[in-house]
């Protein structure tokens, strides 16, 4: 009988090689990848998310847990892909035009993936029309816009305007975040939601579905 608790613990503690070994052992013993994800990884990221939110762990611990989660997820991915396992949702995310910062965005991606989302990373310095192209061509539930610079915050508004002009606004929910962004700004520019940090982003993304 495979001990999912041990896998959960190893991911939450950021034990990268142990998480990989246990995942391999689970798959070798015939457990479905989806079950490993549901019973081993998702509880781990819930623990990590809660601990981060409460200030019990910090970025180093979160990143190590993310590495352990990725090591495990890499082994599960082939089977998940062939069996078409359901994701929590589909999320496209990018840093807005003029802004090259991606650390915050990447932490959001890490937490979303760890919570079962399929995430498409659009990178940095993404123009409003590029966001529109992605929304048009893909079947995404949520679009995330990130900015670190006060300077680039208006590009969030420009992106939402571009989505409206392209007739795409009703097709997708828009979330915004980043150090200078506030809930009031999010409301002012017509975003669907603002998230303070990566953990809150996961909870809000779920609530928007």
């Amino acid at each position, binding site marked *: 009988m495979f001990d999912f608790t041990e896998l959960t613990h190893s991911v939450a503690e950021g034990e990268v090689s142990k998480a990989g070994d246990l995942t391999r052992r689970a798959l070798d013993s015939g457990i479905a990848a989806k079950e490993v994800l549901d019973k081993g990884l998702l509880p781990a990221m819930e623990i990590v998310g809660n601990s981060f939110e409460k200030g019990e762990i910090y970025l180093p611990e979160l990143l190590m847990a993310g590495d352990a989660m990725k090591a495990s997820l890499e082994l599960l991915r082939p089977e998940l892909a062939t069996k078409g396992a359901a994701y929590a949702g589909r999320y496209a995310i990018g840093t807005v035009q003029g802004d090259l910062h991606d650390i915050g965005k990447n932490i959001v991606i890490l937490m979303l993936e760890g919570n079962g989302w399929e995430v498409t990373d659009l990178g940095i310095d993404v123009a409003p029309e590029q966001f529109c192209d992605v929304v048009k061509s893909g079947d995404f539930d949520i679009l995330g816009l990130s900015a670190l610079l006060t*300077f680039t915050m208006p590009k969030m508004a420009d992106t939402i305007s571009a989505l409206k002009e392209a007739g795409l606004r009703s097709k997708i929910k828009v979330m915004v975040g980043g150090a200078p962004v506030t809930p009031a700004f999010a409301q002012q520019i017509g975003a669907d939601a603002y998230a303070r940090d990566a953990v809150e982003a996961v909870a809000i993304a779920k609530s928007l579905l």
Partner: protein
Amino acid sequence: MKKLSNLERMLTAIRREEPDAIPTFEIDIDERVIEAIKPGASYEDFCEYMDLDAVCYHETRTDQYQVIDKAKGIVRDQWGAIKQYSPVSMSVPVTLEPAIKSKEDLESYVGPDPDLPARFKRLEEAVKRFKGRKAIIATVRPFATVKDSLRAQNELFKDMIRDPDMVDRLNQIVSDYYRRYIKNLIDVGVDIIMETADWAFTHGPMVSPKYTERFIIPVFREIVEYCHSRGVPCLKHTDGNIWEIFDMIVATGVDGVHPIDPLAGMDLGEAKAKYGDKVCLLGNVDCGNLLSWGTKEEVREAVKDCIRKAGKGGGYICMSSNSIHGAVSPENYAEMVRAIREYGRYPLSLD
């Protein structure tokens, strides 16, 4: 009270005594704001024109860069990292590739020369022009150098758990450099050293208080102690919510803390009540939203609010919550300085 020089005003506030008026300066002022307020002025001319109490030389102004791709804003910094500047902001580059990607890189690493005369040229000119009148401040940023030049940020954070020895060795590289560099700055005639590496995010410290104490504080404490041994005050800047590490910052003996970040939920009144008897407080006028998008009236009210919370008895320098970056409205910045001059005169009379 007799009118003090800008320098005296700064030093009095830093000693947590009451000067003639609350001082003001900025760590950095974007040239677009300077151009809008005083067309054609150099940074130094602008500081004179606005009667700012200090001229501040951000370390990036004295660093050496090798341009790799001018059109894309890509440079190699003096530590060997490849960085890119945003097309809309020249102040916050991102690291494309750090100098040290592996232990092997570390073994063969040679750092920059802290004695390079070119680093001190502009400061020497500032000393000639301002010494004894305005406070001359130079910034240094050892932790940011480790985090953004020597190593990629996330790898550094993971190193704290998986390879603490690596972090110690990186810290030794910057400690050796900055010990010498700061000695040179003070020899040239700098009045105040300001350490400007961010240690916190909006929600709290970047790393746990335990790791802050273990990996970040020691190099900083060395700097504070060295400055004090030379009779020079040392200020600390960090964005973010620092409540959890405020005690340990103060315990280093640092003279002032900036900017008590309002966007991270830091309350200036609370900081004054808790630490006003130990350190000078600086900043807190929101440059993220208020100075960028607010009205002049809102700016005046914010200045009054800051002075009300932290001005009593001295020990407060009123300034923005980071810098006067390119998105700040020039009118709002000018209004902020006017309001500080109007409401910041001791004895305070705000209403």
